[in-house]
């Protein structure tokens, strides 16, 4: 667990981070979102003491980080940065094995761990072991970056805009893989990004920052439903907010069992999002879809009218 209590950071007269408090329970994925210069990266780098905080208290599992030797602290925390920061003079294997070697693991253990991680991140060992960073594509390099961060199996992972420099298709693919990885590994993750869609897709807990302060934090759905001010609302996409919310909702949650009516022409798999369902309705000029399971067998109905009514009920119940 990571806990920041009333933490501030000043560089000379300038206050980069102003009195923030944040709690990331074990196994939670927390995203810090904001425009550039809002202090999100500074916040992240204070956790592994690349930057020392000026005021307040930062604790890991209840122990203040000031009590740790910074070097030992960093070896316990995985760290991924935007431009990968891979060592250009080392091949993939040597790059990934860095922290275990620093921790004096045996050669055999390091090798086994590196191969395990390459497997986990979809980097075939035979093909990639002896490649150098400049021979990798952006996506492959960042996979190596993530593998390097996970190498010593740290509980905590800090990621500083890890996918910021990638093309949209690669970025989306890596986001999906990271989500799957997190579902398996349950690391405590602090993830910095300026891309709200990325944050919405990955985070359990969303923190919106501006000018060194936390403006609002909560679950992605809570923020979408009740943005606290116009800035958060615009960060969340303004008019697009409804669709972003729909993207976080599964078809499964709004489906009704098969009615007596004929099945609709258009079919949608049950694990798709409501946003994809709405898109399909617009495309096919219909207000009703047949929900199918993974074997394409119809299992339910999705009707636009019902979706809207449920949304109204949700809103009403919260008002009360």
């Amino acid at each position, binding site marked *: 667990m990571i806990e920041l209590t009333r933490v501030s950071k000043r560089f000379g007269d300038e206050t980069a981070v102003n009195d923030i408090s944040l709690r990331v329970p074990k196994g939670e994925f927390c995203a810090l979102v904001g425009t550039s210069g809002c202090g999100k990266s500074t916040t992240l780098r204070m956790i*592994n003491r*690349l930057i020392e905080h000026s005021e307040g208290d930062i604790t890991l599992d209840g122990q203040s980080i000031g009590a740790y030797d910074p*070097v*030992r*602290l*960093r*070896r316990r925390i995985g*760290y991924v*940065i935007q*431009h*990968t*920061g*891979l*060592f*250009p*003079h080392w*091949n993939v294997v040597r790059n990934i094995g*860095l*922290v275990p070697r*620093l921790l004096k693991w045996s050669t055999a253990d390091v090798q086994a761990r590196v191969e395990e991680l390459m497997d986990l991140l979809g980097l075939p060992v035979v093909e990639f072991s002896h490649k*150098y*960073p*400049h*021979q990798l594509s952006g996506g492959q390099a960042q996979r190596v970056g993530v593998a*390097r961060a996970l190498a010593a199996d740290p509980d905590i992972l800090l990621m500083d805009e890890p996918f910021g420099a990638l093309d949209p298709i690669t970025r989306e693919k890596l986001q999906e893989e990271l989500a799957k990885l997190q579902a398996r590994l349950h690391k405590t993750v602090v993830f910095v990004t300026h891309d709200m869609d990325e944050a919405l897709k990955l985070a359990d807990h969303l923190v919106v920052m501006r000018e060194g302060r936390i403006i609002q934090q909560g679950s992605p759905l809570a923020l979408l439903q009740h943005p606290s001010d116009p800035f958060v609302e615009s960060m969340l996409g303004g008019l697009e907010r409804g669709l972003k919310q729909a993207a976080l909702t599964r078809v499964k949650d709004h489906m009704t069992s098969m009615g007596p009516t004929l099945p609709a022409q258009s079919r949608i798999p049950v694990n798709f999002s409501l946003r994809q369902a709405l898109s399909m309705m617009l495309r096919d000029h219909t207000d009703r879809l047949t929900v199918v399971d993974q074997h394409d067998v119809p299992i339910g109905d999705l009707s636009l009218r019902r979706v809207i009514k449920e949304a109204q009920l949700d809103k009403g119940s919260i008002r009360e």
Partner: protein
Amino acid sequence: MSLLDAMPTPRIRWKGRHPNVVLVSLSLIMLVAFWAFDVVSMAPNRIVSGTGYGALEAFGWPGTLLATLLLVTIGVVAWQPSHRHYRALIVAVVLLMVLMPVGLIASSYLLIDPELPQARLGLGAAYWVVLFVLLLCLIEIRLRLNLTRFWPTLLLCGVALVWWLCAALWLDSLALVQEYNARNQLFLTAIGQHLRLVGIAVSSSVVLGLLLAMLMRRYARLQKGAFAVLNFLQTIPSLALFGLLLAPLAWLASNVPFLAQLGVSGIGTTPALIALIAYSLLPMVRNTYTALEEVSPDTLEAAKGMGMRAGQRFWQVRLPLALPVLLEGVRITTVQAIGLTAVAALIGAGGLGTFIFQGLGQAAMDMVLLGALPILALALVVDASLGALAEALRPGGAQ
């Protein structure tokens, strides 16, 4: 059909075969030099200055015709060159280089009277011009064929071997060989001294340079002052620096017996080394400092974030990444020191410069060459090998 398919495919330039103006003009220069200048000179003994001879007299008709034909061929082939033609051109160039000592052997038979054992053959202007231009041709062809430096270097080594064999076996009458034979023991000693001076100067400036560069990185204020001093040292003419060191070192040697025992004196090795190191420090420190500073901050930040200690970051990340630029500094320093050491002969430090200054004193140009050519060769060899080493140490083998 996409827009790209509809566009006319661009003509491949290769087929257009424009004349290679560089090679054609180089071949013309060689032809003119070959016919207009003296090819060799002949002197009955060391004291008399020689008489020059043109190609016809030196090589006879067959030799002159062969050389002219080869030179013309280079120009003609280069008029419409293809990939294969460039390869043929390499063969022609190398053939000419190999034929050069053979031509000398021929002229030694044609020109030298067996009754005059003192007679000596000198290389004429045409020889030097053609040799120089042939090297230029090789560089041009290398660039056109996109070859690495390796093959041309190997070819040149082969050519040098042929020259050396010819000189050792059949060219006793060549003035350069005579100068060498007259003092081959001295020559070896001189090369030894030269290498020793360069070796000590460069290795101490590498160590001092690294230390200074690291101090500069730690104390920013030192940086300006140190660079100012080193820049100033570089502007003092080498001869003046030797002169300036003469008086204080002589004084030290006569007043501090301990230093005199160590070999410190106004002339000789000590002042030479001090001056050489002073000159070597600037390129060394500048390159080392830049090399260490230019390592990507992202990489260093990552190293820190991964939990590497300061020492580990320096030895495992910063230094290896700086190494190619650092070696570039060693290369420049060494090449410069090889040249400067020649001047050190003036204050009695020995080395190949001895022959240059003695030769100048005796107006014996061939003796000057005996000192100058090995210096040139040393510089080229060091330049090529350290360059190749820096190339090989690029991060990840390439970039």
